[in-house]
């Protein structure tokens, strides 16, 4: 069957609704990469096998990321007429017990993280039996979230086009193709205020308008899924959990700018995302939602996947284009901008995964609706992968304009294990580290840039009192040094030089002169580099120098690492009052630096000790002290 009309769509929609909200039992397991890493596949198998054994009929769905990655494996159990519960940290054993309870007609409230209310459904409120379970949207982690990009992730079966359509999918494409002109679509996007979610925040509608205005035989639209920032996994999650939203957004974009061909560029390190996108493309083609004469409108659009070979710089748009063309993944000077001369010299639009996933929502609900979310000039929502030394980790989608405090303390629940948060890193190696003194800063593109960081593509890494900020800067410079394509002198030579200085400082060999040179070189790399990668590479250095200069000075002047992290600047000793002589540290020390008799005080041989801190980490009594 091919979808040609709205009524074809309605038929698929009812198919999708019947599996999304079946009359019996539906169990979804969060099986994006994050869930799989936490053991979701084993949980899925346990649920499957036990249900088989007990003869329990159910729909078992491997869904995308449910968001609360820290609580994974997450299992969403929906019993028609009874309720819908989210279970956290499910083990295969617990999974089997759950099936046994469900087979016995029970919906156990025990162990449930939250009740998931469903709008306009019998399950909008928990029954009395489940009254004690908190509502999902009342959990601190979820209460300030607003899901637009992640609207389907963790809810639908990612490869079921019917379920995507049941969640309003392809209504927007029908609206665009049947009721609107390309210019009309661009106007909606312009009015919505949507800005590129790849990090730089250029207004998407303006980019489209430029490309739309150029006459050309062929044009292209590219989805940039070359997410590479350490700590960011938002694009991966969207591609894994809701691939059709990206394909639909891209098709609408193609219609708006006049492109008949699209490419989804995904890094090869994302095998599951590639698998899901490949399946979704095939399914959309089969149903005529890609290909010729979509919705009988006369509009043709095809899309295919291009797998990136793993260079960070290919996330830069001109390098990405060169990579698709089969050339070296290295940037070229702009202008010309890709919107006028891009892939194979043709006008080309490159949008981030999240940007494209947002487009259908804007077309469906209107520019005004979208513009009403967030703040003036920074409309809509932004998705962060909140990770690092924070109590609650996971994918968080919030309206723009929320403060850093809201993100870290309210949603994130503050520092991990009650420790003090020291800095928030956004934007990966292009971003910077912001101190908690800026907690009240509303998260907007301009604020982040002014503060010395960038919005970035979704990574938000929390650092606490044990994190050395000089070492953080060194880590990121090591990353950019390795990922710089090496084309232009400032990025190639400058990042290496900065990395060398930072290595000297963290080894206790830095001088005040080094600090001066570090700043001077950082400014040069920032202003003289060819592409965005080089121009932003010094941000981790400049921002830590700006907010944590005292830590640099402590390393240089006092040869001291205030966080107690830098190996060369610490010493480990065992506190006589606390050591019980259990011998664990002696057995585990990789260099045999610890000696002592059983039940007597142990000592560390400072000559042999490499400061690896294994003893510090494993001592059950907390008797190992870091002397800074």
């Amino acid at each position, binding site marked *: 069957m091919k979808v040609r009309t709205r009524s074809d769509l309605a038929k698929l929609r009812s198919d999708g609704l019947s599996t999304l909200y079946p009359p019996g039992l539906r169990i979804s397991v969060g099986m994006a990469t994050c869930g799989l890493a936490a053991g979701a596949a084993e949980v899925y198998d346990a649920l499957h096998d036990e249900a088989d054994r007990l003869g329990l009929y159910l729909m078992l769905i491997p869904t995308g990321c449910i968001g609360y990655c820290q609580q994974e494996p997450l299992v969403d159990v929906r019993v028609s007429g009874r309720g819908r519960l989210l279970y956290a940290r499910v083990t295969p054993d617990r999974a089997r017990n759950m099936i046994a309870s469900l087979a016995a007609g029970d919906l156990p409230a025990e162990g449930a993280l939250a009740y998931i209310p469903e709008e306009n459904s019998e399950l909008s409120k928990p029954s009395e039996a489940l009254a004690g379970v908190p509502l999902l949207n009342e959990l601190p982690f979820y209460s300030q979230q607003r899901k637009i990009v992640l609207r389907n992730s963790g809810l639908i079966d990612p490869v079921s086009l019917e379920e995507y359509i049941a969640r309003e999918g392809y209504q927007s494409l029908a609206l665009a193709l049947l009721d609107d002109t390309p210019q009309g679509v661009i106007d909606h996007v312009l009015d919505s205020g949507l800005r590129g979610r790849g990090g730089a925040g250029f207004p998407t509608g303006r980019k489209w308008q430029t490309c739309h205005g150029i006459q050309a035989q062929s044009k292209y639209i590219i989805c940039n899924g070359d997410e590479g920032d350490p700590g960011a996994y938002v694009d991966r999650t969207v591609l894994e959990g809701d691939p059709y939203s990206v394909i639909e957004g891209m098709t609408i974009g193609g219609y708006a700018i006049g492109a008949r061909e699209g490419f989804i560029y995904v890094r090869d390190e994302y095998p599951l995302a590639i698998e899901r996108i490949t399946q979704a493309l095939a399914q959309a083609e089969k149903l005529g939602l890609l290909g010729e004469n979509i919705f009988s409108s006369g509009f043709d659009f095809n899309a295919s996947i291009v797998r990136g070979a793993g260079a960070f*710089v290919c996330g830069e748009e001109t390098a990405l284009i060169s990579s698709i063309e089969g050339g070296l993944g290295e940037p070229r000077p702009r202008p010309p901008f890709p919107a006028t001369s891009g892939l194979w010299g043709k006008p080309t639009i490159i949008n981030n995964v999240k940007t494209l996933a947002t487009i259908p929502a804007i077309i469906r609900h209107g520019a005004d609706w979208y513009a009403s979310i967030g703040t003036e000039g920074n409309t809509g929502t932004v998705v962060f992968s909140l990770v690092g030394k924070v109590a609650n980790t996971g994918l968080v989608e919030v309206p723009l304009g929320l403060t850093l405090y809201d993100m870290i303390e309210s949603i994130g629940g503050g520092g991990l294990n009650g420790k003090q948060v020291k800095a928030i890193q956004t934007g990966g190696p292009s971003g910077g580290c912001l101190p908690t003194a800026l907690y009240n800063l509303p998260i907007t593109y301009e604020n982040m840039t002014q503060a010395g960081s960038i919005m970035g593509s979704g990574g938000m890494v929390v650092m606490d009192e044990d994190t050395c900020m000089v070492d953080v800067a060194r880590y990121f410079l090591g990353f950019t040094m390795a990922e710089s394509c090496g084309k232009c002198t400032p990025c190639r030579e400058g990042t290496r030089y900065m990395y060398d200085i930072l290595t000297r400082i963290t080894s206790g060999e830095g001088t005040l002169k080094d600090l001066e040179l570090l700043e001077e070189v950082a400014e040069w790399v920032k202003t003289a580099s060819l592409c965005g990668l080089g121009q932003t590479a010094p941000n981790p250095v400049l921002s830590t120098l700006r907010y944590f200069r005292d830590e640099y000075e402590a390393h240089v002047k006092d040869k001291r690492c205030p966080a107690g992290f830098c190996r060369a600047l610490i010493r480990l000793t065992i506190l006589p009052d606390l050591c019980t002589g259990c011998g664990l540290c002696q057995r585990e020390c990789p260099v045999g630096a610890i000696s002592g008799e059983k039940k007597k005080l142990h000592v560390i041989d400072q000559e042999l000790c490499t400061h690896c801190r294994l003893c510090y980490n494993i001592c059950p009594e907390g008797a190992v002290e870091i002397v800074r």
Partner: protein
Amino acid sequence: MVNLTVNGQPVSVPEGTILLEAVRSMGVDLPTLCYHEGLSPYGACRLCMVTITAPRHALVASCTIPVEEGMVVETDAPDAVAARRMGLEFLLSRYPRSGVIREIAEREGVTSSRFGEPPPDQADELCMLCGLCVRVCRELIGAAAISFIGRGTERRVGTPFDMHSDACIGCGACAEICPTKAIRIEDRGSKRILHTWNTTVKLHACPECGRFFVPEPAAFLKEMLPEIKDLWALCPACRQKRTTSQWLNTGSTPTS
């Protein structure tokens, strides 16, 4: 024509002119290593940095941007000078043996570098990755026998897998265009050895004088040069002899 101001002086240049050319046309010198007027703009060495104050304020590599109407350019603005000097200081520290780099650096007032010396195993390195050889081979010769390998500080130029290249026609344009003379080519008897590319090509001998003068793989060029097609086999000296005597005998040359 496009009107712009360079260091306070008005100038008009044809539309599409690269800013660097406009600046040079006024006799203002800007250092470059990766720029060549016959090749596509590349923007790698970042030595031709200038400050533009209109239509927007920016520090730019003048070799990569086309002129715009009303553009105001300051070649000696402090940030531009600082950026150029910084680049030269780094190049000087990485390639201390390169006379060309030393010379350019001196012209910009840079005689020493604060950034140390190259690692011992790279002390003799001359290739500063300007990409002129790669571009001339691809864009003008059409052979694309060499390209960049690796990235970041590991970046270098070579043939695929550093093996003998069948695509290389031995023309030597790479060595000719290389500003730092980093490419070593040697003619030895009937062979041309392109040491840097691990490639050897056969040379063709002039049937008249027996001198080896052109790489055999370059023979396809005669199809593109109809005026010397019949004289291709002769070395330039014998060719001249032949055309001169022809002219003396018949009053016409093959090219007239």
